[in-house]
């Protein structure tokens, strides 16, 4: 127990994490750029044209990985939030804070590409299909987490309140998803099941997986960069923080 705590604080202390993150960001960013480039290449040039939908279906190489990432990142954020509440560890809260905007971005990307795909396919920018509706609700949940944090001035309370909401949300996400699907089948509305292509060609699957991996690496790089900002912002009062923050250093009196 004691040993675990020592290790925890050693690796998670902002002072140790800050330079480590700085060294890691270029690597993750490079890998992300390579993977996304390869994924887009396979998706847009190698994968075969769909005989029903033509070229427009190719947006799924962005849409589906983005949708996957948006849900995955919400769960990761909730895990960090739960760790923060359980261990009373500030770095975990910072991590949850750093992940949220990226998750929201992917949710928005999934919605946007869904709409772009819907127009040529269904003739409408928006159809109330189960996946798109769930993504919209997920975007509301991300907005809730971020807005709750910014509305509370005391950083400790902001951390913990938004962590509780993230956890409440993660319990609700499966219920919401289930209820929306249920609602969708009851009303027999338009269904945009993009992954239910009869036989997904191996190249299509490869492109999607490569894109997902690329998005994942991108998420790590961006989260680390945002984490560095969060650390600087929060530690600006400490001597360490002042040393690293040039703008703040001017104000030292």
């Amino acid at each position, binding site marked *: 127990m004691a040993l675990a705590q020592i290790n925890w604080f050693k690796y998670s202390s902002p002072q140790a994490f800050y330079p480590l993150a700085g060294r890691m960001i270029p690597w993750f960013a490079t890998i992300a750029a390579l993977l996304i480039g390869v994924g887009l290449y396979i998706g847009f040039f190698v994968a075969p044209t769909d005989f029903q939908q033509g070229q427009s279906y190719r947006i799924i190489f962005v849409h589906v990985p983005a949708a996957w990432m948006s849900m995955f990142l919400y769960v990761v954020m909730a895990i960090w939030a739960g760790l923060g509440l359980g261990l009373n560890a500030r770095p975990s809260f910072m991590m949850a804070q750093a992940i949220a905007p990226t998750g929201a971005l992917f949710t928005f990307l999934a919605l946007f590409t869904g709409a772009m795909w819907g127009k040529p396919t269904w003739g409408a920018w928006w159809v109330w299909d189960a996946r798109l509706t769930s993504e919209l609700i997920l975007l509301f949940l991300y907005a809730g987490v971020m807005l709750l944090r910014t*509305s509370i001035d005391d950083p400790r309370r902001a951390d913990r309140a938004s962590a509780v*909401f993230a956890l409440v949300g993660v319990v609700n996400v499966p219920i919401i998803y289930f209820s929306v699907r249920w609602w969708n089948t009851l009303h027999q509305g338009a269904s945009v099941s993009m992954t239910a292509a009869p036989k997904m060609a191996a190249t299509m699957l490869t492109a999607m997986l490569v894109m997902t991996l690329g998005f994942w690496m991108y998420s790590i790089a961006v989260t680390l960069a945002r984490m560095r900002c969060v650390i600087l912002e929060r530690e600006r009062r400490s001597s360490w923080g002042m040393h690293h923050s040039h703008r703040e250093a001017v104000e030292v009196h």
Partner: protein
Amino acid sequence: MSQPGIFAALNEIIRRDLLLVLRRRSDVLTTVLFFIMVASLFPLGVGPEPAVLRTIAPGVLWVAALLSCLLSLGRLFTADYVDGVLEQMLLIPQPLSVLVIGKVAAHWLISGLPVVLLSPLLGLQFGLSGEALGVLTLSLLLGTPTLSFIGAIGAALTLGVRGSSVLIALLVLPLFIPVLIFGAGAVTSSASGIGAGAHLSLLGAGLLLALALAPWATATSLRIALE
């Protein structure tokens, strides 16, 4: 912490909140009038076509119930927070979640139950059949306590936060969606002859889940808010 102690505290908190409402009856009236007004706006906006009204009635009445619950959530903890009573409640030698259950029960009696009782009347205005009216009332009876439980989490999280009345809507409404879907779905499917059994069971399951988890989350949020 003895069993009778828990029930005595639960009883005391519900009686206190009801007594406070008796002294200030306008609070209940506002919620109920709001519910009636929102529901009455739709025929004015959509037009008096009976077939259309009958189709949208379950959704409209459920959304109106949702909004009137939301409207009354702001009062759930705020008054007690401002005058310091909530701080004393945190020092009661009983688990805090028991207290939360008492507050939520009182909130439902004050704002949820009147809506349930009024819903058949409003359903008649929309031309719902007798069976659909019964299902509507039953679905609200099962669903509105869940709304109060979920809403309590939002109310506790936004306690004393600036702009809390708008923020609480943003936090709580997405969490209300499953209740809305199953509640309005129960009425729709009974009207279309599928039967409302599955929907009502899911509403019941939702209530049990909310009863199990929401008091804990609310208690945690209250402690965070009062630190």
